[in-house]
């Protein structure tokens, strides 16, 4: 058994309590341990990606219990890609945070590591109830991170965020209960094998469970009509936390890809294609809502939050269609939108900190420190987010448009993506010119917030994320074979089921022969 697979969960799980117990009084030491752990995580994720690109999914049976009786972790191309993306985003966000933001409250680094543990676990697990547990791990860490630094408005937004997610967790449990009650299993591969055999009398229960699960994952992925919690939460969270949360919406998208693609996908009897009728319209409305919100936003934080909602709509369109070409294009756009959203949220933090008084509100005010450099970074990140050439947002949208060309809904998708891109361009141009351009005509200079101490490292962090975007653009040709192989693997449901259910079985058989 390949023990490397569990390391992305174990490493932060061991570092987090150590940060709380041993080094909670020493910020410098906590920073060293946290960064070292995240760098290690990046290395492990890179190694796992190399392993996964070999082909077959790799199974890690916890406690050596053979599936479907024990919990399994499954490493395939998709989960390896998501692990690497998480580690990369986390490292840059952490570099931004150790430039001062982490010292404004307590236990930032421990919560950060627990959050990484939850996200990595959700990407790796092959068991539905275990997915629920990892969701709770990442959520409870995110509650702490969300209110990091305190403040009345932030705390009240935090209460809302917790309430929404607690209701989501209850729905998740109801869905898990329904699915277990009908099929008698929670292992994803075993579910995929049993769902086609569910008798017609139980179909209503099963499909209710499947749609409830979709609703839960849609809350995480901020799809309309359950997107309302996102702008308040992300705009009020501290900048590095909001940037890290850019991966959390993708956890929802990943869960829909994994669970509904595998268990309720093609060839699954009456439950097949259950979600497509719902997901594609939801994705299109999400796209329109998000990008209209970009136009209407009154602060930079809100603008970026709505752009995140819009980009989730764009990600979910190819997921809803679930064909080989659309999945590869969607995955390319998913990585791009995570990096772009991360960079934009960090920039919101830099702007708000330097404008004492107006903060990140979109009002004309005198110039602030380093506005030139921040404006240049914002220009690049906004170009990427809006999907203008030459950056990866353009390539991603082009790939999606090309992939859906022959489908029935092509007209809707083309219109949706093109019109909303235009809205996003106008929105970001308005925001940028209000914040950076018009300020040059104003008298005087804005002071920074008291306690604002972000320096060179913050700019390195934003620059790192933007460099990642440039690299993702430049290497678009080189990564496409990997993404296409990932799409192939996602569509190869039998391969997944056979690998998970049969390999350990063979091991037991061999053992049995050995003792005879």
């Amino acid at each position, binding site marked *: 058994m390949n023990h490397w697979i569990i390391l992305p969960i174990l490493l932060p799980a061991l570092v987090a309590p150590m940060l709380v117990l041993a080094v909670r009084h020493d910020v410098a030491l906590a920073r060293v341990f946290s960064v070292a752990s995240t760098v290690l995580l990046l290395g492990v994720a890179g190694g796992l990606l190399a392993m996964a690109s070999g082909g077959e999914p790799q199974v890690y049976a916890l406690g050596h219990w053979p599936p479907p009786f024990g919990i399994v972790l499954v490493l395939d191309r998709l989960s390896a890609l998501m692990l690497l993306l998480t580690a990369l985003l986390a490292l840059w966000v952490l570099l931004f945070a150790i430039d001062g933001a982490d010292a404004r409250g307590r236990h930032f680094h421990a919560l950060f590591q627990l959050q990484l543990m939850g996200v990595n676990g959700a990407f790796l697990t092959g068991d539905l109830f275990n997915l629920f547990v990892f969701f709770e791990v990442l959520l409870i860490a995110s509650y702490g991170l969300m209110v990091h*630094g305190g403040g009345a408005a932030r705390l009240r937004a935090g209460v809302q965020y*917790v309430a929404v997610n607690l209701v989501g967790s209850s729905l998740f*449990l109801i869905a898990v209960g329904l699915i*277990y009650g009908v099929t008698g299993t929670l292992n994803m591969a075993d579910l995929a094998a049993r769902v086609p055999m569910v008798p017609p009398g139980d179909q209503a229960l099963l499909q209710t469970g499947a749609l409830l699960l979709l609703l839960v994952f849609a809350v995480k992925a901020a799809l309309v009509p359950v997107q309302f919690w996102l702008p308040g939460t992300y705009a009020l969270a501290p900048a590095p936390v909001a940037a890290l949360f850019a991966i959390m919406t993708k956890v929802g998208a990943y869960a829909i890809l994994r669970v509904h693609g595998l268990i309720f996908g093609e060839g699954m009897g009456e439950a097949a294609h259950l979600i497509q009728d719902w997901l594609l319209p939801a994705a299109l409305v999400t796209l329109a809502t998000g990008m209209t919100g970009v136009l209407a936003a009154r602060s930079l934080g809100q603008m970026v939050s709505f752009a995140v909602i819009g980009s989730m709509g764009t990600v979910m369109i190819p997921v809803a269609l679930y064909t080989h070409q659309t999945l590869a294009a969607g995955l390319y756009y998913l990585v791009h939108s995570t990096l772009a959203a991360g960079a934009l949220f960090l920039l919101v933090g830099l702007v708000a900190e330097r404008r004492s008084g107006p903060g990140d509100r979109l009002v004309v005010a005198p110039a602030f420190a380093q506005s030139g450099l921040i404006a240049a970074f914002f220009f690049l990140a906004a170009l990427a987010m809006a999907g203008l050439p030459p950056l990866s947002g353009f390539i991603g949208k082009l790939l999606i448009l090309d992939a859906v060309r022959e489908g029935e809904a092509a007209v809707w998708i083309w219109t949706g993506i093109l019109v909303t891109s235009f809205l996003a361009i106008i929105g970001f141009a308005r925001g940028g010119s209000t914040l950076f351009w018009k300020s040059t005509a104003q008298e005087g200079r804005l002071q920074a917030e008291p306690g604002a101490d972000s320096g060179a490292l913050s700019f390195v962090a934003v620059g790192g994320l933007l460099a990642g975007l440039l690299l993702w653009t430049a290497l678009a040709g080189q990564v496409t074979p990997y993404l296409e192989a990932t799409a192939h693997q996602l569509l190869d449901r039998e391969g997944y089921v056979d690998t998970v259910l049969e390999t350990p079985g063979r091991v037991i058989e061999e053992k049995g022969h050995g003792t005879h």
Partner: protein
Amino acid sequence: MELLVASAVGIMTAAGVYLVLRARTFPVVLGLALMTYGVNVFLFAMGRLTVNLPPVLTADAAGYTDPLPQALVLTAIVISFGMTAVVVVMALRAYLESDTDHVDLARSEPIEKADRP
């Protein structure tokens, strides 16, 4: 027994949903707690309702009660207990800092108070 369990789940969930939709934090917290109770009983019932049967299948047993939902419920109880504690503490802090226990944010608030430390 079926009627009793089913109506218990239904009433607890309905009361929970009603309370969650209130505008103040205390009823919302109570509602969340009631909802998780309803969900726990529901999850328990998903292993089928049986009385006086062993949790392990043996060769001569007439039937068995499914032990897995009981393990799931145990996990769910622990998690929901922890989550309720978190939401109580956060609601209390939010009330003390902003002098109001309304759940919803005022329209202008996110922008004006966003950047106060």
